[in-house]
């Protein structure tokens, strides 16, 4: 799908704040409410807007620690990747799972209440999974999302 300037402006605005009404968004962009709505609908139908995500302060709801884990599988070929992916994705503290090429096989984003809780998740849930070999952990200090090339 190719975007014009107004589509880009809509995407940028909704990436920053998806709670605003189509009326208000339209006013800012000089579009009528129905025209704004139609454009958003078109972006949704084309799959460009894949969904909406709630922004919570993780620390204030009790998750003080976020860790990025690089996981190397120890016994490749003997472990079913599908089984591994299903099992790792089912752990509630595991927020994202990416199959990657490079130094590691999987990249995980894991949340925990504190470092002790993280150790529990790592030792009891992740390290016990069949096939898990080398694991590298990096504790998240700060994070920022950028609008991207639009």
């Amino acid at each position, binding site marked *: 799908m190719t975007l014009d300037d107004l589509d880009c402006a809509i995407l940028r605005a909704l990436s920053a704040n998806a709670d605003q009404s189509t009326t208000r968004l339209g006013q800012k962009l000089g579009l009528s409410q129905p025209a704004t709505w139609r454009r958003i609908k078109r972006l949704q139908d084309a799959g460009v807007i894949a969904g909406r995500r709630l922004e919570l302060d993780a620390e204030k709801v009790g998750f003080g620690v976020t860790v990025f884990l690089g996981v190397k599988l120890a016994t490749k070929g003997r472990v079913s990747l599908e089984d591994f992916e299903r099992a790792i994705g089912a752990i509630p503290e595991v927020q994202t*799972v*990416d199959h990657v090429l490079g130094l590691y096989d999987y990249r995980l984003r894991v949340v925990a209440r504190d470092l002790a809780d993280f150790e529990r998740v790592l030792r009891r849930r992740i390290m016990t999974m069949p096939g898990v070999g080398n694991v590298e952990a990096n504790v998240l200090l700060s994070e920022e999302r950028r609008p*991207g090339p639009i």
Partner: protein
Amino acid sequence: MLDDIDRRILRLLQADPTRGVPELAEAVDTTPARLTRRLERLRSDGVLRGSHIVIDWKALGYTVSVSLRITLDKTVSRAFDDFIAAARAVPEVIEIQTFLGRVDVRLSLIARDLPDYQRIYREQVLTLPHIADIEALMTVATVKSDESLPL
């Protein structure tokens, strides 16, 4: 502090942020007025910060996604600030994270295809200031990406 009803509200909203007040009030067995007060409190306490759309970059032709793990030259006192300010100027960088660990900074980079990635990598990434080491992990498949918290 959050009580059980707050947690239920946040769980439901996390699963579907488009849920309206009347429906949500019914789901947590309260009145719309009480729910609105709770939502206002969660917002003013900074627990609930709002919502944003998720863009599927693949649908816009960005088929390549790479995680760049960067170690900075920490002998330079402003290494982090300089590096992050310069990384913000690269449009294809969609996430910037800093870490405590072997990796200092991670950039999430998207590109249209491999030649496009090679160009961005050479012209805009390798030229970022104070890089001591850089490793790339190329995403083959995203298995899970909802980023929800286990409330």
